[in-house]
């Protein structure tokens, strides 16, 4: 798994077929075996992702606090549906299972760093910030 994590980081956030060949060569495994591992775990991505990955938790606690409205706000601001990547490769929007921040709902992970207490009204500001400063926006 650490090898796949490294490969994913080297390949811009996802695992193309050559990544599996590289990992397989390094560890003396088959690419198919490496793919069988990667396909099991949510954080290994088998398709290209945007420069900025926005993940909204929609599990029970966040849902009770209105995660749907937060997701809808991101959908309209980014003009994407959940699960889609923008054509220009700027953003990916996904829903995810519990991120472990239930008491500080809604949790939104932006490039894997968590923002707490996100409300639908905060979303336009967050998206403007992400667009303005590029990728490195995690404060």
């Amino acid at each position, binding site marked *: *798994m650490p090898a796949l994590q490294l490969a994913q980081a080297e390949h811009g956030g996802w695992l193309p077929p050559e990544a599996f060949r590289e990992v397989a060569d390094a560890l003396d495994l088959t690419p198919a075996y490496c793919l069988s591992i990667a396909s099991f775990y*949510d954080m290994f991505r088998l398709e290209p992702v945007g420069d900025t990955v926005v993940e909204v938790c929609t599990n029970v606690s966040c849902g*009770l606090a209105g995660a749907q409205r937060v997701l809808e706000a991101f959908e309209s601001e980014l003009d994407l549906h959940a699960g889609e990547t923008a054509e220009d490769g700027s953003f990916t929007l996904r829903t995810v299972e519990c991120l472990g921040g239930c*008491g500080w709902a809604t949790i939104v992970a932006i490039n894997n*760093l968590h923002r707490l207490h996100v409300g639908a009204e905060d979303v336009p500001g967050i998206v403007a910030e992400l667009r303005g400063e590029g990728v490195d926006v995690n404060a």
Partner: protein
Amino acid sequence: MSTPEVVFAGTNGGALTDIAAYEAVGGFTALAKARALTPDEVIEQLNDSQLRGRGGAFFPTGRKWSFVPKPDKLPKPHYLVVNADESEPGTFKDREIMLRVPFRFLEGCLIAAHAIESKHVFVYIRGEYEHEFEVLRDSLEAMRKQKLLGGVTIVLHRGAGAYICGEETALLESLEGRRGQPRTKPPFPAIAGLYAAPTAVNNVESIATATQVIALGGEEYAKLGVKDSTGTRVFSLSGNVVNGGNYELPHGFPLKDLIYDVGGGIADGHTLKAVIPGGSSTVILTAEEAEGATLDFDSLTSLGTAIGSAAVIAIDDRCCMVQLGIRVSQFYEHESCGKCTPCRVGTHWLTQILQKIEDGRAAQADLDLLLDVCDRILGKCLCPLGDSDAIAVASYVSKFRSEFQEHIDYGGCPLGGSSSLEGIVAPVGLHAHPDELVHA
């Protein structure tokens, strides 16, 4: 409110991420104390404390360590594996422990390693916890510089997003580089765990608490809390409350006080409808049942539920219980590893039947079918993931049956789109299948 802090002692609400600051509040004295004791004496302290595992199963920690054979009886490497793959919905205590008292946690790892005579510690931390990983990595480096590790190697291993890896044998599989699918037990990890060698698997909070058990002395620790549930617990409070968050309180604390006093009550002037007391896999309590409950093993067990991971989710009167069932079931369906058929197929069925009820397409027989499917999952798999879904969903039906009946009679959701979970979108993709086959 003054309640004794044990896990978070000395933090004053902040974080002890500086090694000197941690030493100033007595850090690493427990380690010195433990190393002056024999492994058996350390285990005895844990037994005296009656500390029970904080991951959810509530298994006595001292006894778990005593199951690991002595190295001369089983001459293989011994391993300590710490389960930091916190992902039970509603639970977020371990991350706060790792962020605020990382040294206390790592000190506990060394104490536990001493108790089971291990030189190798693996901390399996969930992949989504990036900041927590960085804090632990920096803390570990600081300890290494101070030569506190005493020949023990601590490896921080990052997961990659799979709830099932919180199950101990799935975690071991994942740690060995495979898909995180549970193993058949026996053999139990204490005999044949990581790399088929003796292994103790403990939760983060258990390990951090073990440090304090040694610092205070087992008998002293046992004076906190109540009978059969000694000590304090970090409760994760979430849902429709004003002040969600982690609160360290003694076991036996009244549930309603946690929600109304500590948590500031139900948000936006609504009333409490139900409480999930120990993470999403536990039996739900109605507001009336929650009224008299206390947060300990005996009280919650007598109400037919469990303290679980001590994750309390308060649900107000706006929530449709069928929608709650759908969302919980979607989670377990998504996270099922696919190894055992009753879970892989059953969780999907539960979601489908619940969706039918919610949409007003269900016949009376579907309610029976729903409970029948729950029955066909329960106790028929290698691990409790499918059971969790079945237990939770069956409890929503039994405690809020009239609401399910209304959906069937009325031909749809009686809340008519005003439920707090209306429109919620679950993630797609399953662990059990390639992405392309999802919901075909």
